[in-house]
C-alpha cells in the first residue's frame, strides 16, 4: 500500500488504534449535523482499513512491527507486536466496520433511533480497542483493552434505555466484568508470577515451568476468564446483549467482541502455552469437551427460540465454541481451522444479523413464526439470509466449508473422533434451525397474498442496508472460491498450518 509508505511500522500500529479513537471524538464534535457525522464515521472506517492493509502488506514482507508505549510495572508495560493472527482479525474487523457503518446509517435512520451520536461514538471507541487487542504484544495489554472493550460497548447494549435494555446490560457487564476480574486477571497474574514475562512468544513461555498442575489450572482460568468466548456456563451475556440495536449485534456480538474473546483464547493457546505444552496438560481435554458440549447444547437451545435475534445469538455461542475446540485440539491444522473460522463465521453471521435487522426495519417482525411468506416481500434479504445460513452450516459453495473442513481434519489428526462426531451433528442441527427460516419465507404463503408475485410487491429495507447485506453475502461466496490470501496469512502463524503435521 503506497498510501502509508512514509510511516514507520510502529507508527502504523499507533495509527490503527488512534484513527478510530480520533474518529470517535470527531463524531461527538459533528454530532449536530448527522450527514457530516456519518461522513466522519465512514471515512474513518475506510482510512482504518487502508492502514490495516498496509500492515498486512508489511507482515507478508516479513517486517517486524512493534511499539512500546509505557511501562506500567518494572519490565512490563503496554506494548504492541503485530503477528499474523492479529492481522487476520484486524482485517476482518476493520473491513466489516465499513460495511456495518453503511448498514447502521440505513438502520438507525429507518428505525428512528435516538442518541445516534453516542451510538456512533461508542462504536468507534469499541473498534479502537479491538485494534489494540489485535496487535497487543503481551497479556497485560490484551487484558487492559479487553476491559476497555467491555466498558465501551456497555452504552451500546443499553442503548434503548428501556427496562429490558437495562436488565440486558446488567447481565452483560456483570458476567464479562466478573469473569475477567476473578479469572482472567488471576490467570494473568499467575502467569506473571510463574514466568516473569507476559510476552506473546512463538512456542509459548511455559517451557521452563515445572508446575504442570498449576498450568492445568491456569488453562481453565484463561478459558473461563475470557468470558467473551462464551463457553458454557458463562454464555448468558451474549443472548442478553441482543437488546442492543441490530448493527451492534451484527458487528460487535457476531464479530468484534465475541471474536475478541476467541481470538484471545487462540492467542493464549498459541503464544502463551504453545501447542506442544497444551497437548500434555490434564485439563485440555476437559475444556475441549466442555467446548464440544457448548456447541451441541446451544444449538439445541437455538432451535427453541422463536425470536430471530435470540436464535442467532445461541447460534453464535455454538459457533464460537468451534473456535475454542479448534484451539484446544492442540493440532496445527485445527488451529488453522479455528483461525479461518474467525473470518468465515464473521462473514456468515454478520449477513444473518443484517438480514434480521432489515426485516425488523422493513416489516417490524421479530419472531420467526411471523416470517412465513416474507420472501415475497423481501426477496433479496431472504436470499442473502439463505447464503449466510449455508455458510454457517458449512456447505459449498460458501466460505464456512473451509473452516469446518480444517476443524474436522484437525480433530481426525488429533484422534478425537468424538469431536468429529460433534462437528457433524452440529452441522445437522444448524440445518435444522437455520434453513427453515428462508425456506418458509419463500415457500409458505401467508393467507391474503394469493396473486402472482411481482417486484412491485416488494418492500425491502433502506438501500444502505441492502448494499451492506449484498457485500457480506458476496463475501461468503468469494471466500469459498478465493481463500488463498487468508490461508497464506494463517500459514505465517508459528506452529499453525493448513497442511497439518501432527509432530507440531
Amino acid at each position, binding site marked *: 500500500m503506497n498510501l502509508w509508505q512514509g510511516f514507520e511500522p510502529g507508527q502504523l500500529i499507533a495509527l490503527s488504534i488512534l484513527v478510530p479513537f480520533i474518529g470517535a471524538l470527531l463524531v461527538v464534535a459533528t454530532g449536530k449535523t448527522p450527514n457530516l457525522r456519518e461522513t466522519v464515521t465512514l471515512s474513518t472506517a475506510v482510512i482504518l482499513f487502508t492502514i490495516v492493509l498496509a500492515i498486512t502488506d508489511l507482515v507478508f514482507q516479513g517486517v517486524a512491527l512493534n511499539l512500546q508505549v*509505557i*511501562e*506500567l*510495572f*518494572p519490565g512490563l508495560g503496554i506494548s504492541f507486536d503485530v503477528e499474523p493472527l492479529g492481522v487476520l482479525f484486524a482485517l476482518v474487523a476493520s473491513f466489516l466496520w465499513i460495511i456495518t457503518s453503511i448498514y447502521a446509517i440505513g438502520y438507525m435512520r429507518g428505525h428512528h433511533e435516538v442518541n445516534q451520536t453516542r451510538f456512533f461514538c461508542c462504536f468507534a471507541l469499541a473498534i479502537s480497542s479491538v485494534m489494540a487487542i489485535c496487535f497487543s504484544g503481551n497479556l*497485560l495489554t490484551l*487484558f*487492559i483493552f479487553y*476491559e*476497555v472493550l467491555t*466498558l465501551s460497548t456497555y452504552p451500546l447494549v*443499553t442503548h434503548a*434505555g428501556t427496562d429490558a435494555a*437495562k436488565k440486558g446490560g*446488567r447481565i452483560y*457487564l*456483570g458476567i464479562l*466484568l*466478573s469473569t475477567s*476480574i*476473578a479469572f482472567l*486477571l*488471576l490467570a494473568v*497474574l*499467575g502467569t*506473571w*508470577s510463574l514466568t516473569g514475562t507476559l510476552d506473546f512468544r512463538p512456542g509459548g513461555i511455559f517451557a521452563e515451568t515445572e508446575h504442570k498442575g498449576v498450568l492445568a*489450572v491456569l488453562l481453565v482460568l484463561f478459558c473461563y476468564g475470557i468470558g467473551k468466548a462464551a463457553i458454557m456456563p458463562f454464555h448468558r451475556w451474549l443472548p442478553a446483549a441482543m437488546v442492543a440495536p441490530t448493527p451492534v449485534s451484527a458487528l460487535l456480538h457476531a464479530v468484534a467482541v465475541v471474536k475478541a474473546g476467541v481470538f484471545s483464547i487462540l492467542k493464549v493457546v498459541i503464544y502463551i502455552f504453545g501447542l506442544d505444552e497444551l497437548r500434555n496438560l490434564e485439563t485440555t481435554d476437559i475444556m475441549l469437551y466442555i467446548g464440544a458440549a457448548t456447541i451441541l447444547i446451544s444449538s439445541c437451545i437455538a432451535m427453541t427460540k422463536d425470536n430471530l435475534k435470540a436464535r442467532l445469538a445461541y447460534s453464535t455461542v455454538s459457533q464460537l465454541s468451534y473456535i475454542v475446540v479448534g484451539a484446544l485440539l492442540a493440532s496445527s491444522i485445527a488451529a488453522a481451522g479455528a483461525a479461518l473460522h474467525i473470518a468465515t463465521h464473521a462473514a456468515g453471521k454478520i449477513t444473518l444479523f443484517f438480514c434480521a435487522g432489515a426485516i425488523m426495519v422493513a416489516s417490524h417482525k421479530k419472531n420467526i413464526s411471523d416470517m412465513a411468506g416474507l420472501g415475497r416481500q423481501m426477496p433479496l434479504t431472504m436470499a442473502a439470509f439463505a447464503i449466510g445460513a449455508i455458510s454457517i452450516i458449512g456447505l459449498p459453495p460458501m466460505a464456512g466449508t473451509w473452516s469446518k473442513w480444517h476443524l474436522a481434519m484437525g480433530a481426525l489428526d488429533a484422534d478425537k473422533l468424538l469431536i468429529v462426531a460433534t462437528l457433524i451433528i452440529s452441522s445437522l442441527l444448524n440445518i435444522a434451525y437455520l434453513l427453515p427460516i428462508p425456506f418458509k419465507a419463500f415457500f409458505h404463503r401467508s393467507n391474503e397474498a394469493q396473486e402472482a408475485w411481482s417486484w412491485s410487491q416488494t418492500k425491502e429495507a433502506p438501500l444502505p442496508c441492502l448494499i451492506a447485506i449484498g457485500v457480506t453475502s458476496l463475501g461468503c461466496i468469494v471466500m469459498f472460491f478465493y481463500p488463498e490470501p487468508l490461508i497464506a496469512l494463517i500459514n505465517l502463524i508459528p506452529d499453525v498450518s493448513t497442511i497439518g503435521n501432527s509432530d507440531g
Partner: protein
Amino acid sequence: MFEQHLAALPIIIPLIAAPIALILGRSLLTWGFATLISAWACYASWHLLLAALSEGSLSYAMGGWPPPWGIEMRVDAANAFVLLAVTAVSTLVLVYSKNSIEKEIDSAQHPLFYTAHLLCLAGLSGILVTGDAFNLFVFLEISSLATYTLVSLARDRRCLTAAFRYLVMGTIGATFILIGVGMLYMKTGTLNMLDLAERIHLADGNRTINTGLAFIMVGVSIKLALFPLHAWLPPAYTHAPSAVTAFLASTATKVAVYVMIRFIFTIFGADYVFREMGMDLILMVLAIVAIFKCSYMATAQSNVKTVLAYSSVAQIGYMVLGVSLVSVTGLMAGLIHIFNHALMKGALFMAVGAVFYRVGSVDIKAFRGLGKQMPLTMAAFTIAGLSIIGVPLTVGFVSKWYLVTAALEQQHWILAFLVLAGSLLAVIYIGRVLEAAYFQSASDDASAAEVKEAPWLMLIPMWSLVIANIYFGIETSITTEAASSASEWLFQNSKVLEVSP
C-alpha cells in the same frame, strides 16, 4: 532555617496556625489562610520526601535534646510518603470545603471547622514523623479530639450520636495504646522507638511485652477500624459534614494503618510479631472477613455515604492483608494502597458532597438522573468508582496488581482469588449508584429540574484527585519506587535488629 527544621515543619505550621484561624473569625480570610497553611505543610512534606529518598532517613531532635532522652522526629521513605499524601489531600479538601460547609455547617461554626481541621492535620503529621512511642500517643489524641469535633459540627443532629459513639470507641482505642506503651516503658525504661526496639529484642519473650503488644494491636485496630472493631466508622462517616468525611476517609484511618506498620516493623520487629506471636494469621483472617463482610454490607445500603464508609472498611482490609503477608511485596502493596485509596475515596466523597450541596440528600434515590444534571461530578464519581473496582489504568489496578502478586509469590492462590473476587462486590455497590445516575430519570417535581453542576471550587479539587487516580495508574514508577524503598527499609530494619545482639 527551612532546611534545618524541615522535619518539624509539617506539625508546627498547622499547630501554630490553628488558634490564629479561630481568631480570624468567620470570613473568606480564614478559608484562604487555612488553605495556604495546609499547602505550605504539603510543600514541606514534598521536600521531606525528597530528602528521605536521597538520604535514607532524617533524624531531628525536638528542642535540641538528643534522643533517646529528648523527643526525636524521624523521617524515612515510609512516613514521608504517607505524610505527602495526607497534607496534599488536606489542602485539596480545604479548597473544596469553602462551598461544602456553607450547606452543612452553621456559619457561626466555620472558624471552628478550620481550627479543628488544622489541629487534626497537625496531629496526623505528628503521628507520622515522631520517633517516640508516647509522643505518638499524644499526637493521636490531638488528631482524635479534633476529629470528634469535626464530626459533630454537621447541621444534621444525628452527627452527635455518631460523634459520641466514635468518641467512646476512639478513647478505648487510645487508652489501650497508652496501656500498651506504658507496659513497654515499664519493661524497657525508654520511649524512643529505635531504643525500644533494641531493648524489646533483648527482653525476648517477656510476658509484659507480649501483653503490651496485645494492647497496642487492639488499640490500633480500633483506630484503623479493622473488622470487627469498625462499628464506629460507618455512622461517623455518614453523618459528618462531607468535607470532613472526605478528609478522614482518605487520611485518618490510613495514618492508623501506618501506626500499625510502625509498631510491628520498627518497634516490635516483624519476626517477633509474626513468627513468635502468630499475628499474621489473625490479621489475614480478619482482613479477608473485612473485605467480604463490609463489601457485602456496602451493597445493601441506601445512603451513598454509608456505602462508601463500608467500602472504606473493606479497603482497609486490603491494606492489612498486604501487611499480613509478611513480605516486601505485600507490605509494599499495603503502602501503595494507603496512598491510592486516599486518592479514590477522597474523590468519591467529594463527589457525594457535591451532590449533597446541590440536591440536599445523599440517598441513592437522590442520584437519579444526575448523570445529565451534574455530568462533571458524576463523571468524577465514575472514574474514581472504576478505580475502587480496580479497572486497569487507574490506581486501583496498581494496588490489586501488587497485592495479588504478593499473594502468588507465596503460592496463596486462594487468597489471590479472594482478593479479586472481593472487587466484584465493588462492581455491585459502585454499579448501583452509577445505574441510578445514568439510567434512571429524575423525579418530576420542579426542584429536581433545577439541579445544576457543582461550583468550580468543588470541582477543581475533585478533579485533581480524579486526574491523580489516572496519572498514578499509568505512571506508576513514582508510587511504586517510594513504596518499595519504604517497604525494603522497614524490613531491613526489622532484620538488622535480629542480628545486632
